[in-house]
């Protein structure tokens, strides 16, 4: 069988970094090929070159054996290459059909298009109503809009960038069923991820990138997850260990917490209630946009409500803004590192003052004690191994992982009684993520109550004592994390909550069909 796409010796350098260095691999028709690597390994640059967004410095690509060098995405699409990005490019105020039409060269009349969308969505088990407003869709449904937009072009190669990062386990299964159906029709899929189990379940080939170079290729079905991880990271990974801790007294009580959404298409919190004890980690899972930002904001004090909704050691603090909460020992770290947890253009010293001036005693009579502030910033940098030329550099100059270590470190070093973090390791490389998780566990081990809001279920299972799920602004009752199965978690998350019955059955049917065929394939 001739290869669909052959890549030979592709190199692309940016000032100061070689993003791709002499990368070669090939994909056969009907193959699901994994591109595996940590953040910053060069996966994005590579697929951008295939999709015509970035021009390689040297090297060649061939599609169906013919030279292929798309000057722009339009050329790539015309050649049969489609891509689903990690970050969606959709207009929230338009409906599904309008959004799909906007991405097409010559869109048919909207009625016609809606019919096509319905057909494709049925054929591939991706339930989607073309008339619904994108702003009202879940992240999983938005992804379907992007996928269907690609499928309407009848692609020969579909590139998917971290598609499961926003999905519930049930939605992941539906997606995999769709991808397997596409595969059976001869469509090749280039699948980018750093989730190893997924890749082992789905892909037939894998190319592993580290620091821009191909460091290995394998059949992921034959390799163990640990082998893949070692190839990806270049060293054995340290999994956080948790010191045994006994849950202490209840530190934080939340009851009847209801709040408005922070943005137009955000989510309202609906009567949320939970308790956290000293020395305990409460993990809160949920797909993006189910109220995570709103919950963090209500706990940090950025949105205030009735005083009794939040109690710290019995004291009502729901009406207090962030700073009085900090003096009482309740700290937080929001999801968005740049622009929320830290000011991008300000130095790390400034950013240390941002949330640390009270507990670290960085002011006197209203005047900032810059010497102490610099010392505090330096302490964060050394304690949490933040890689930076110094505390004077702007926050935006740091890589995501390093800035995240700084932000989390800034809060932890202030010895909080309660720490709330949202997506503590989002977009952070594996080594830094492990360090952050370990720091959170150590904090709980030292007697603090820790709340980890995250979309990464593996992470939550790793750190949580108890687990609760946010779904459309509702919080499920927390359950002990040990012994929870993915199935149960999926149900807590609301599963494929946004589908009607007929669609689900259809999806189930497709899933079963292709799981069967998959089994036959693997066990000849």
């Amino acid at each position, binding site marked *: 069988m001739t290869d669909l796409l052959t890549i030979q010796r592709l190199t692309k350098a940016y*000032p100061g970094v070689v993003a791709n260095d002499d990368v070669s691999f090939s994909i056969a028709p009907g193959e699901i090929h994994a591109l595996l690597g940590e953040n910053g390994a060069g996966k994005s640059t590579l697929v951008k070159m295939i999709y015509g967004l970035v*021009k*390689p*410095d*040297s*090297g*060649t690509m061939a599609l169906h054996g013919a030279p292929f*060098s798309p000057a722009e995405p339009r050329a790539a699409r015309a050649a049969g290459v489609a891509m689903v990005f990690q970050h969606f490019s959709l207009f929230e105020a338009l409906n599904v059909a309008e959004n799909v039409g906007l991405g097409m060269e010559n869109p048919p009349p909207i009625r016609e298009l809606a019919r096509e969308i319905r057909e494709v969505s049925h054929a591939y088990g991706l339930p989607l109503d073309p008339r619904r407003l994108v702003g009202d869709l879940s992240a999983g449904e938005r992804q379907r809009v992007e996928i269907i937009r690609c499928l309407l072009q009848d692609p020969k190669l579909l590139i998917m960038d971290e598609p499961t990062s926003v999905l519930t386990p049930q939605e992941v299964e539906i997606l995999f069923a769709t991808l397997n159906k596409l595969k059976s029709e001869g469509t090749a899929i280039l699948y980018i991820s750093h989730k190893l189990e997924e890749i082992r379940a789905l892909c037939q080939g894998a190319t592993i990138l580290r620091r821009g170079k191909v460091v290995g290729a394998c059949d992921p079905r034959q390799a163990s997850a640990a082998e893949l991880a070692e190839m990806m990271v270049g060293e054995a990974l340290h999994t956080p260990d948790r010191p045994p801790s006994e849950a202490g007294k209840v530190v934080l009580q939340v009851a009847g917490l209801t709040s408005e959404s922070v943005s137009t298409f955000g989510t309202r919190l609906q009567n949320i209630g939970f308790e956290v004890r000293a020395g305990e980690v409460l993990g809160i899972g949920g797909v993006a946009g189910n109220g995570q930002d709103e919950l963090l904001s209500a706990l*940090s*004090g*950025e949105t205030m409500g009735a005083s009794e909704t939040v109690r710290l050691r019995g004291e009502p603090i729901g009406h207090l*803004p*962030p*700073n009085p909460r*900090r003096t009482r020992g309740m700290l*937080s770290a*929001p999801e*968005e590192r740049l*622009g*929320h*947890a*830290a*000011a*991008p*253009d*300000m130095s790390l010293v*400034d950013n240390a*003052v*941002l*949330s640390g*001036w009270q507990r670290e005693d960085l*002011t006197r009579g*209203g*005047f*900032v004690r*810059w010497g102490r502030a610099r010392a505090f910033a330096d302490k964060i940098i050394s304690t949490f191994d933040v890689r930076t030329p110094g505390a004077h*550099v*702007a926050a*935006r*100059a740091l890589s995501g992982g390093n800035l995240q270590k700084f932000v989390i470190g800034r809060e932890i070093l202030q010895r909080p009684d309660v720490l709330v973090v949202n997506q503590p390791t989002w977009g952070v490389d594996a080594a830094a993520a492990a360090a952050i998780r370990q720091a959170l566990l150590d904090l709980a081990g030292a007697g603090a109550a820790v709340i980890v809001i995250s979309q990464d279920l593996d992470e939550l299972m790793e750190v949580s004592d108890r687990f609760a799920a946010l779904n459309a602004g509702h919080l499920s009752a927390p359950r002990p994390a040990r012994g929870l199965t993915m199935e149960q978690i999926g149900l807590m998350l609301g599963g494929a909550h946004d589908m009607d019955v007929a669609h689900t059955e259809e999806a189930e049917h497709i899933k079963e069909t292709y799981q069967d065929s998959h089994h036959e394939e693997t066990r000849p």
Partner: protein
Amino acid sequence: MIRLEKRPTPSQFWTYTTPIVAVLLTMLAGGLMFALLGKNPVTAIKTIFYDPVLGEFAFYYRGQLLVKAGPLILIAVGLAIGFRAGIWNIGAEGQYIMGAICGAAVGLAFYPTESWIIFPLMILAGALGGTLWAMVPAILKVRFNTNEILVSLLMVYVAEQLLAAMALGPLRNPETAGFPGSRNLQQYPSAANTDLIAGTGMHWGVVAAFIAVLFAYILLSRHLMGFHIQLAGQSPKAARFGGVNPKALVVFCMGLSGALAGMAGLFEVAGPAGQISINFNSGYGFTAIIVAFLGRLHPIGILLAGLLMALTYIGGEAAQATLQIPAAAIQAFQGMLLFFLLGVDVLSNYRIRLDRREPAR
């Protein structure tokens, strides 16, 4: 191909160098414009930039320099603090007028009593007048989320009408038969804001401007309030996370800039202008916006920018008088200065790269 590449950290070097580059570019482009108007560009530039400071009649111009620069700096410092916080008070001209009206009214109410307390009271009244005028857009923004740019700007025209009404009505000098305009405060010793050293142009307003520069410098570089102001301007969400109350900040910044503009108005009406008249205001409140940006919203920068701007005004007038350059050309020249400053500003955040075309394979 020329390409802009974002710097990871803003360049310190270019932050301080761009104003000089901008002035040089303005001289070049302005010189070209003067040449097209049939004037000798070298003479014109020399008349504007050199003569007022070091020329034959510099003894006269130097005093004027401080008289013009004082109110510009005083207003611009207040505006810059707001601008740093992302609060856009465009109506300093109106607050300047209201400060003058309120301050002058207090002085005139005491006429002809002589006492040392009168002038300090007038300063207070001027600051209060400016603050209250600035509170209108501030409170509308806080309560109803209106746009402070629009409201503060429109309040300027209301203030101008009030000024005319005052000059014709309540504050009119009763001893002139129907002429508009108030008594001349310069002839009322307790209320007069005269040169502290005769002939230098150094009046209380200039002193206040220097104090304001110092005060603003300390506020912005040393005080938590100044830190919060810059935080709110650069990253509103991070400021909320840091516990900054955005509404209180609007009231503080609008109030402060209003107070300083009002004081500038009082110093002007009690000093160089002398009286409330229909056309008392001469655009200081608007020019101060340019001064604030020309000085990179930094107090020391504003001090220099205010002096530079005053220089182009005085030099511009001299060029009009001696070289018959039209007033519009002088205004265009001043416009160029701002244009080039904002244009080359890009250098502090971006670096320019000359690209050879990338090989396709």
